[in-house]
């Protein structure tokens, strides 16, 4: 999923005729001064980061005059919000809000069609509203072959109960345009929260637009450079590095995401951070289920599937081992139809390059497990290259189950810690 920043989403809204506040993107105090001259006061200053809880994290400020504007700009620029550095701010006119609503079009996996969602409680997380006031949320499926007509939107809004006819007309107009954004830009989610009632009508005060990553290649106007799922934050440089592995080569895929950026969750929970590469996402989850009770937490998730070429395994192994916090590494295949000797060669080449002093034998506890096509060849390759003889690596074959693997890793880690004291 490629999530757009607020200003990018609002640009799409504007293009489709959804009213947005007048605003400018700034990256310095000088630029902010110029914008203030154009817009006047009061203004909102909004950090352009992907975090969904930006407001609660102090990423949105208001300014009534130039002094408070400059103070706000200085406070926000360079600030870190949930792991994302703020280097751009959206300065826009502050609206006199009479009422706030929630409006969205998203994909409903259960019905495999888009769904329109509206709530009379805007400005708060829709998940929170669903818990506290579920009756305030109304939804309607959208027939993708028909689209969302004005009368469909009116039907949906009629369920809300406390909208007057003028408001319904205005909101239905916004709804049909939001659906146009959703369809034209291959969205998974097009959301306005809050959608504000102001004197002139309705206006989108925020924008969340998530593009389906499978469609990112045809959305050439959106300047999407990273389409992997990174959650409520911008992609890290390591994730971007991993994403480039598939960029020019579609022979197999590599999906990598850092689940615990600085290993603070792992360490804070009393667990040992480890790196993980799984062939098969399900295998990745299963091995996590076995590792966590023993006190080991994979700080990345990685799935290398679709029979990737050996060079992809080489590159992703280097990416995983580049995480400085890890005190162990696991490569685990499911019972795979992939050609595992190719995987083995990729890992071996990476190990030999990263551990030249020991001819590829690692200095942290490592487990590699091959189960499936050419697994015997893969195991042999590690032996032939002398890596299996390493003190801190175990190369396992098809008879090993996930729990056994986790226990072997646990034993290896304890020995390593006892004998070396760790790193």
């Amino acid at each position, binding site marked *: 999923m490629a999530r757009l920043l607020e200003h990018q989403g609002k640009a799409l809204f504007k293009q489709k005729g959804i009213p947005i506040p007048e605003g400018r993107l700034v990256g310095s105090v000088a630029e902010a001064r110029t914008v203030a001259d154009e817009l006047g006061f009061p203004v909102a200053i909004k950090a352009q980061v992907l975090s969904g809880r930006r407001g609660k994290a102090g990423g949105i400020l208001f300014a009534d005059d130039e002094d408070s504007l400059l103070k706000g700009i200085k406070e926000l620029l360079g600030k870190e919000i949930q792991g994302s550095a703020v280097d751009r701010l959206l300065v826009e006119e502050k609206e006199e809000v009479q009422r706030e609503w929630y409006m969205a079009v998203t994909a409903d996996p259960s019905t495999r069609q888009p769904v329109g969602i509206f709530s009379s409680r805007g400005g708060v997380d829709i998940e929170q509203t669903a818990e506290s006031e579920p009756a305030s949320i109304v939804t309607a499926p959208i027939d993708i072959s028909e689209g969302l007509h004005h009368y469909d939107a009116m039907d949906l809004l009629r369920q809300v109960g406390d909208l007057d006819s003028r408001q319904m007309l205005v909101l239905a107009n916004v709804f049909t345009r939001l659906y146009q954004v959703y369809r034209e830009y291959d969205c998974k989610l097009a959301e306005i929260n809050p959608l504000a009632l102001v004197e002139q009508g309705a206006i989108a005060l925020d924008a969340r637009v998530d593009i389906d990553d499978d469609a990112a290649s045809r959305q050439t106007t959106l300047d999407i450079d990273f389409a992997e799922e990174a959650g409520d934050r911008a992609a890290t440089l390591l994730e971007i590095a991993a994403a480039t592995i598939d960029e020019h080569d579609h022979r197999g895929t590599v999906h990598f995401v850092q689940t615990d950026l600085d290993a603070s969750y792992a360490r804070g929970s009393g667990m040992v951070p480890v790196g993980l590469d799984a062939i098969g996402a399900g295998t990745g989850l299963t091995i996590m289920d076995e590792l966590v009770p023993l006190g080991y937490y994979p700080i990345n998730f990685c799935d290398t599937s679709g029979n990737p070429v050996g060079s992809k395994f080489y590159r992703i192994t280097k990416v995983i081992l580049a995480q400085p916090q890890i005190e162990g590494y696991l490569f685990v295949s499911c019972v795979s139809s992939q050609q595992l000797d190719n995987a083995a060669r990729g890992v071996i080449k990476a190990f030999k390059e990263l551990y030249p002093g020991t001819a590829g034998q690692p200095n942290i506890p490592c487990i590699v497990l091959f189960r499936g096509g050419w697994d015997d060849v893969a195991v042999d390759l590690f032996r032939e290259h002398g890596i299996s003889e390493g003190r801190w690596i175990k190369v396992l074959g098809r008879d090993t189950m996930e729990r056994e693997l986790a226990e072997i890793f646990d034993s290896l880690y304890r020995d390593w810690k006892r004998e070396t004291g760790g*790193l």
Partner: protein
Amino acid sequence: MEVLEFEIRSGGTIRIDLEKCETCETKACVKHCNTQGMGQILELKDGVPALKYTPEEVKRGACTEDLGCELECELRGNHAIVITLPLPELDEYLRDLSEKPTYLRGQ
């Protein structure tokens, strides 16, 4: 023609030092490429490895990048092959890293 160098699909190069190949007794790279490798792009020509296909065809994906030629050459040949697989964003990440990765510690 002391060096055979060609580009591969994922971005990178394979460089074969043919002078070393002249004295190689096994030609393990060619054997691997034609027996275990899926691409089968190498052949022996005048006693040294050569491409069966044009460099353009190889770059388009004829080479399946199993890395076997390099590793077999290390094991059974004359250490004549170097496969370079750049990942510039990883280099950039490592440059900015304040804490060393574990593989750089204690070696």
